[in-house]
């Protein structure tokens, strides 16, 4: 059973690796932030699976903390509007 948990965690890790392409591609800062939000959710799932595979409650605590805090980066981002304006043009120039 624990092999199965680990296998599933592996597939979820792969989805994160592939999803990173969206952070790289953008095109806007908002897109990148959104992708980072997705990784938070997936990382929580991976941690829960790893915690079950090794039967360690501490790993579930890590999952809980990440669940609590992933919103904060996105909220800081939303409340500091000028970042987006500062990088928007650059982001578009540097790609595609």
């Amino acid at each position: 059973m624990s092999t199965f948990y680990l296998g599933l965690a592996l597939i979820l890790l792969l989805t994160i690796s592939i999803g990173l392409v969206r952070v790289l591609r953008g095109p806007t800062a908002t897109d990148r932030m959104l992708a980072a939000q997705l990784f938070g959710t997936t990382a929580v799932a991976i941690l829960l699976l790893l915690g079950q595979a090794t039967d360690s409650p501490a790993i579930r605590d890590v999952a809980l903390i990440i669940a609590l805090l992933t919103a904060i980066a996105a909220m800081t981002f939303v409340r500091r509007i000028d970042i987006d304006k500062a990088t928007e043009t650059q982001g578009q120039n540097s790609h595609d």
Partner: protein
Amino acid sequence: MIHPGPIFDLILMTTLITLAWLLLAGKDLFRAVVLFISFGLLTALAWVRLGAPDVALAEAAIGAGITGALLLVGLGKLGSAERCRRTVRPATALQRLTPAVLIAVIIPSVAVILLLELRQLKTISFGQQKLVLSLLDISGTDHPVTAVLLNFRAWDTLLEKGVLLLALTGIWSLDQAHPLFHQEPLSPVLKGLSQLYLPILIIVSGALLWQGSYAPGGAFQAGALLSAGILLAALGGRSLPSYWPGLPLRLLASCGLLVFLLVTALTLLTNELPLNYPQELAAVLILLIEIFATVAIAVILAAAVAGGHPAERHKHHSPSPEKKP
């Protein structure tokens, strides 16, 4: 059938290294910051895989919250353009050559030598693990990491509290804190979330602190979580009462170090060695240190994100000259 564990490790490391390379090589700084936040998440996974849940907790608590906020606020102040008004004097040939040699020759060769050295490593080694476990009974705590952190190597932790306070002093000496967030009509959802999350954050942080005596957790993780709570309150549009930034803030920021020093002094009275707790008091003293350390860490980290000393309201001495806003 192949076990998925090693494949997981391999892919995790490949992703981390690629991520590090891309975020340092790219042009867009905002992208680098977002990738660095993801880098922190994946590093937490690595600590979990290596059997270091304490480190994973700390990484999750700061990597997902405070580091991202610090970098985003810093980026907002600096802007992402590389610019300098200064006129550049052309570098001499030697000046151009030295870094090139360093980068192209020395760094790769040292890296390769180190990687080759890894082959000499013993595959199984317990380090200090058995020693720590055998001394756990007299440490006043049931969790090996806490025992090392606050008893066997308590000196390190004392100095770490000093470093935190020193960092805050450095930040305060550089600038005055400006309002972190723009005044704007807030989304009620943001306000609601901050109101909902704040009590949860405080409870979880308290639980982590308490849990440190028998399981992964402890002052730093709890403090980092609490500082995220303070940040969240600020994001939700709250501000501190006006009398706060004076003495109360300074006391809270330094109470971790002060209590730790007090305990050190007390142990010197009863014992010839500093921080060598009497065995029956060890648990109480460790808890005492950890509670105040949590508060101090939370306040210091939150103040670090604000990025400057608080505006002086009661004029005790002449404040630093006003700068352009």
